[in-house]
């Protein structure tokens, strides 16, 4: 290996360009990462961050540009090559095998074997256990990871990348599925790694996190370099302007005062998901946003899914507009005007092979029906309008959703529900992976919806968003709603206090 450039430089990208059919994803990107620094990579949804990282990882091939690792030019035909060169990536979309357990996932591709060529399970389990001990997370190593919560899976993903002992670690939105607490964990680990000289590229739409853990910042805009900054010498507003090209009104839309107390559109006097489990109750009023707050795994998603019939509930009573309704599957929920924006867009929300248009009109074809058939014209019109409203960045409504960036995919699912007649909307982590600019738009849209008389349940792990958006907040702990807060009681301190209380408090 010949080393000509500065010795402390871990990675240098020069003039990297990448074109997808119909999209110029990256044009002439330069990036330089030093050893032992945490380097933030920022940009709007679709700016090209993930694409750049995939090129670095050998998963995509750049059309132009060069990659230098520790001063010598490299090219990677596949991720295996990148791993061999000391690069580890935590992907934005999980890359885990659902039916294997955490140990098997972490060591996948490099299983330890004994002298008979058989797997040395004990050794692998030991080092996995050690890894998670260091991370400070509890993971059941024996069960298939599909039985773990999303956050736990995220930590398996993190553990997997860490176990590579990479010199350069890429973290593509790892905190999107973590609560601040767990994110804090992760930052501690990142600092330790930094102390050991590991270079990191950190991608996040939570700009406050950047200031907590990063050293330097590079910003992409529309696939091009938009600027670099030192963390000490910039602030959130400046970064946002660099990303978006304009200043953003990033306060939340004003809450209606006093809080709306229209008729009860949804009452759940009792719901028990599993035999012997906690019994909960809640209600939702016309025009309000009810927050479901709590730690990851506190059972918010489960309760919502159980309520609307997507999952089985052991016992439940649900009243819509005062009348009891049977909700045994999402179809019945939809028929009763209850819609869900699911937590995991790729798995539960989208048909990635479909176009933007099909995904948006998916459960709303009735509106476009002419003589029993789908009127393409009306469908196209409404899809175009809706995708514009949520700001989907795509070549057009006939683009396959699979080719959109993560954040833009999320926007497509939101657009689907904007166009729907449902009165009650359950938004599960609606802004996960959404950039700051778009977030503000989505908040605005949610308010708009409530002003039209719709009611929203917002499940969110982002406290500021809960505090800023919700008219009332149900705080979850251990599967129970331990408190319902309103008005001034909706503040981070109180929510966290309840969320971390033991489940039986009430």
């Amino acid at each position, binding site marked *: 290996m010949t080393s000509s450039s500065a010795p402390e430089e871990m990675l240098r990208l020069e003039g990297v360009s990448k074109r997808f059919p119909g999209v110029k994803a990256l044009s002439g990107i330069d990036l330089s990462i030093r050893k032992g620094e945490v380097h933030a990579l920022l940009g709007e949804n679709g700016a090209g961050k993930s694409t750049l990282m995939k090129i670095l990882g050998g998963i995509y091939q750049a059309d132009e540009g060069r990659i230098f690792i520790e001063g010598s030019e490299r090219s990677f035909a596949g991720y295996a090559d990148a791993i061999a060169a000391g690069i580890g990536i935590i992907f934005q979309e999980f890359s885990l095998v659902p039916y294997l357990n955490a140990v098997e996932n972490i060591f996948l591709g490099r299983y330890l074997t004994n002298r008979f060529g058989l797997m040395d399970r004990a050794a692998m389990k030991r080092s996995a256990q050690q890894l998670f001990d260091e991370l400070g997370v509890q993971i059941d190593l024996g069960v298939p990871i599909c039985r773990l919560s999303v956050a736990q899976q995220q930590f398996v993903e993190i553990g997997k990348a860490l176990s590579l002992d990479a010199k350069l670690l890429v973290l593509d939105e790892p905190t999107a599925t973590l609560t601040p607490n767990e994110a804090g964990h992760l930052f501690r680990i990142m600092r330790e790694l930094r102390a050991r000289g590991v270079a990191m590229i950190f991608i996040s739409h939570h700009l406050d996190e950047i200031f907590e853990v990063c050293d330097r910042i590079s910003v992409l805009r529309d696939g091009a370099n938009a600027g670099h900054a030192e963390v000490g010498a910039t602030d959130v507003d400046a970064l946002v302007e660099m990303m978006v090209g304009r200043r953003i009104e990033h306060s939340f839309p004003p809450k209606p005062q006093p809080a709306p107390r229209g008729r009860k559109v949804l009452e759940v006097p009792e719901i028990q998901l599993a035999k012997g489990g906690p019994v909960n109750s809640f209600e939702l009023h016309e025009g309000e946003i009810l927050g479901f707050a709590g730690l990851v795994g506190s059972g918010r998603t489960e309760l919502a899914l159980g309520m609307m019939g*997507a999952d089985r509930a052991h016992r439940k009573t649900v009243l819509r507009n005062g009348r009891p309704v049977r909700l045994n*599957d*999402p*179809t019945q*929920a*939809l*028929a009763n005007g209850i*819609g*869900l924006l*699911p937590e995991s867009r790729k*798995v*539960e*929300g*989208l*048909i*990635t*092979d*479909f*176009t933007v248009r*099909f995904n948006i009109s*998916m*459960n709303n*074809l*009735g509106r476009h*029906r002419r003589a*029993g*058939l*789908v009127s*393409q014209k009306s469908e*196209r019109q409404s899809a175009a309008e809706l995708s514009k409203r949520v700001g989907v960045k795509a070549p*057009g409504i*006939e683009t396959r959703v699979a080719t959109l960036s993560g954040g833009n995919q999320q926007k497509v699912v939101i657009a*689907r529900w904007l166009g729907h007649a449902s009165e009650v909307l359950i938004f599960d982590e609606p802004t996960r992976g959404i950039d700051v600019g778009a977030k503000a738009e989505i908040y605005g849209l949610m308010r708009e919806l409530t002003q039209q008389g719709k009611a929203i349940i917002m499940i969110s792990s982002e406290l500021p968003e809960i505090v800023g958006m919700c008219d009332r907040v149900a705080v979850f702990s251990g599967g129970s709603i331990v408190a319902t807060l309103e008005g001034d009681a909706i503040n981070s301190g109180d929510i966290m206090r309840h969320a971390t209380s033991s489940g039986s408090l009430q």
Partner: protein
Amino acid sequence: MNATATHPTPPAPDGGLFTQLRRSTAFLPLVGLVAISVFMIAATDNFLSWGNLQNIALQSSINAIIAVGMTAAILTGGIDLSVGAVVALSGTLASGMMVQFGLPPVLAVPLGLAVGVVIGLFNGYCVAYLRMPPIIVTLATMGIARGIALIYTGGYPIDGLPDSFAFLGGGVLAGIKVPILIMLATYLVAYVLLNMAPFGRYVYAIGGNEEATRLSGVRVSRYKLLVYALSGFTAAVAGIVQAARVTSGQPGVGVGFELDAIAAVVMGGTSIAGGRGAIVGTLVGALLLGVLNNGLNMIGVSPYLQLIIKGGIVLLAIFISREAKR
């Protein structure tokens, strides 16, 4: 999913009819069909005659009709292995109704079709509501349907069908053999259903991501049920045509038809994993197989060698379409 086939008028900036055609799922199969036909024209005397062309369409018709339902099943990410047995069951049952009970074809044919729908509904119920895997459900009903056909007939063919019924297999309308017309009608209906009606959209959606489709409130189970009912129905249509063509209800007919239908669907560009494909491609796929059978017979290739050649061409076709998609 095939963007072009589903958007009769896409906003295609670089449109043009040929571009549109070239992008459609059915394009490559069509090229294959043309290529093989050209070869056959060169290799045989009589390939291009009107008689032989009808012959090919006629011989492809039964497989093509079965492949309609198979396309829908495969698009949802499923499969239907019971179609061959349904061909036998519907054919024998309809024949039995006419011969043993003297029912006129207008009554017997709907009964034959109904039995196909019933088997399809049973398949669909197991798949959609009991969440059993399609391949194994339809493998089981394949045995059951065949068993019923054999018990019903005692293993004998049912003979002595009225001429009005035989017309469905051998008759000519406007210069075209009736089975060909039935095939075309089936495809027309299927095209409308799959590309223009909400039903079709759901079929593609289920194959693309069943969980997401379910969570968005689509009645996934019901549409799956309908898809298998459709498959049972088209298999029964094929069974009626088959019985009319050989003017008897044969309990042993249709063994292996499921594989031919699957081949037609996949050769037609539909993804076996579901969610992507086009019904027009299936028709092309079925015709391609028909041309192959017919041409190899016409050339006089030994039946054994035919197996190898057919296998090779199926491979080649899939290979080329894969490469081209890259």
